[in-house]
């Protein structure tokens, strides 16, 4: 199988494509494939020329840490849970392009945290709003639980047509944390609403491609609906 990878040595050097050949077995994930290319034997390109080891990030290797986010055959995804058997004969891998490249497939996603920091997105103290019924409370709880599973992996930003570089529009990752904070601490809700409108609500064109690529299946549409409702009240 042919594997084309967009590479870059340092943050300041030019990027270039390199093609490898790999033997693929069983239920191999793209993460396993990268490991295989790097350490199965000496690393050579498709013409047998010696090259450098491919840089990429991983930690949990089971879809709960978000380290290995990259673009695989045009789709932003986690390498550890994208399986080669589901891909076409030729695999194309490039780093997330909405973030600065550090090295090969490693990118700097610190803008996500910076934006949450400058808008004071933290719960501080658990003060939930009173719920009308147990069913309602349970539903809200499930939504909060899923929202709090956000990996800050950046896949939702990579696919979003509105997100450019995080300077003004902060994307779905921001909207979900806004929802979480404003429902876990009712006293912060109005402050959060202001930032939500400014950095998300007023710009989001509801393409909702973010929902499709989210590894945690966070119901961003529901978060948006609840935040928008709060804006109106």
């Amino acid at each position: 199988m042919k594997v084309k990878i967009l590479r870059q040595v340092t943050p300041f050097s030019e990027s270039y494509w390199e093609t490898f050949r790999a033997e693929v077995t069983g239920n191999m994930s793209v993460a396993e494939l990268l490991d295989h290319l790097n350490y199965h034997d000496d690393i050579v390109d498709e013409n047998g020329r010696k090259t450098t080891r491919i840089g990429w990030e991983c930690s949990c290797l089971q879809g709960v840490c978000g380290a290995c986010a990259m673009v695989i055959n045009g789709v932003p995804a986690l390498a550890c849970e994208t399986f080669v058997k589901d891909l076409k004969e030729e695999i194309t891998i490039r780093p997330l392009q909405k973030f600065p490249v550090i090295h090969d497939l490693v990118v700097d996603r610190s803008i996500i945290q910076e934006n949450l920091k400058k808008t004071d997105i933290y719960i501080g103290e658990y003060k939930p709003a009173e719920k009308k019924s147990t069913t309602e409370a349970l539903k809200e709880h499930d939504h909060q639980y899923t929202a709090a599973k956000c990996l800050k992996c950046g896949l939702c930003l990579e696919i979003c047509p509105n997100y450019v570089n995080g300077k003004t529009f902060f994307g779905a990752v921001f909207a979900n944390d806004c929802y979480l904070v404003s429902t876990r601490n009712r006293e912060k809700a109005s402050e959060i609403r202001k930032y939500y409108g400014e950095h998300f609500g007023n710009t989001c064109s509801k393409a909702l491609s973010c929902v499709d690529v989210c590894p945690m299946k966070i119901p961003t549409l529901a978060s948006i609906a609840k935040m928008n409702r709060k804006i109106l009240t």
Partner: protein
Amino acid sequence: MKSAIVIGSGISGMTCAVKLAEAGVEVELVSPFPSERSQSVMAAGGINAVLSDHEDGDSVACHIEDTRRGGRYLAGETAVAGLCGHAEEIIRYLEGIGTVFSVDENGLPARRAFGGQSYRRTCYCGSATGKQIVSALVMETRKYEGAGLIRRRLWSCFHSALILDGRCCGVLLFDESTRKIEAAYADAVVIATGGQNALFGKTTGSTQCDGYTVGKLFLQGAELKNLEFIQYHPTALYTGQKKMLISEAVRGEGGRLFYIENGKRVYFMEEKYGPQGNLMTRDIVSREIERTGRQVFLDISFLDSRQIDRRLPEVRDLCKKYRNLDIAAEPIPVEPSVHFFMGGLAVHLNHETNIKNLFAIGECASMYHGANRLGGNSLLAAVYSGMIAAKEIAARPSEKTLPEEQTDFVRQLESANEQLKKALEAGVESPFPVMYIREMLAETMNRDLGIVRDEASLDAGISDVDYYLSAADKITYDSSVMPYEIYSLKGILSLAKAVLVCAKERRESRGAHFRSDFPEADDDFGCATIISYDQGAYRVRFDKERAYES
């Protein structure tokens, strides 16, 4: 004290940083990646606490006894009493900062049964307890980042500690984005780097927890403790890329272990230990699985599919994704896997090491779990130890670093940068990937330091690691990998040797350490193993005076 450097930003590191900031101490929180990538997010099952609405008969004293019994009475009573005694306060704290705990019909934290425990006292957040706590702590840390009290230093890896006359004054850090080593000074340094997975290659844990920091500090004079006690989790699902943990929650919800003989299921744990057999401690279950010599399965398919979705959704997803297996319809093939390290940096009750102003917390420190750890106690210890270290540091007066000490440290920094430059200049043509040595090490450790050990296998392991150590300095490495991977090798190998030496010296069986040549517990070894490094010599002693229990 006025300033601290915390190395590692998982649950323990963040707790410590937040508590220091609350007390007005300025913190530099160092990690190559954000907290979302830490191993803490993988902690699935729960966190133990006897809350005021506990089950009839349960008590803090009972939690203490379960913890000490699980650890085969190696952990100090005062330390364990502190841990269990503060458990309710810790749950209230985590609730207070917004952690999304699973709740009962009254909105109070729900509790489940967990292995080795007399009562249901494990609070949880679905099957993602660690992740939910991380999310809440990231927000709390952010609060103090905004206030200027915590500064996150990303892309930074530990290189070495700056130690003079037995006192730690700071660290050298390798910055991945600038590819340079820099010095950072503070009144106290806290190590929160997690376990030592990389010694064993693929485990249930994160690839980032490699044990280097602990290994390097050992070479710099820090004493290590109880290294031979390594917990195998009995139920892991093997895949090509790693060993996936199947949470103990599955057994907590009634999951049954069996193997197949003559077409029939043999529920070997229940046959040997009675109806609660599946919930025996992890060491016993792991050894029993190994003893069967067969493929063992874990069955939860008798539970209603909706109940599985509600209570074990992550386990269901994981099995579907990586093995195309539906746990609501079929049993899960499981095998034991290295999972947790009870040993690590030796610390006193205040979490200070034998080096002054150098602290260790979380999994990289050895304190509460003795010879084996109960499920649900690691998250508790991660938070508690972070709080204890922070309290001690905040209460202590600062010591001024003298200018002449700084000069020594500048020399250490220059020499580290020179060595790094040399390694990088070796170029792409130099053929040998450092990862090959790491893979050989993992093979040695898995073979010679498995669930069942003996003197001959441990000697063989020591001899292998000695060989890797003797070759490590002479090889020119492929420099196209992150330089950290190259400079960390010697620390990792040294730690591996220390683990093997400790396992050899403990000539008895206790908790997670099982010697086929000494299958019984021996009172002579009823205390902690301490190992220190002295100019190439690995010196082991047994802490009969209990020096680390004060």
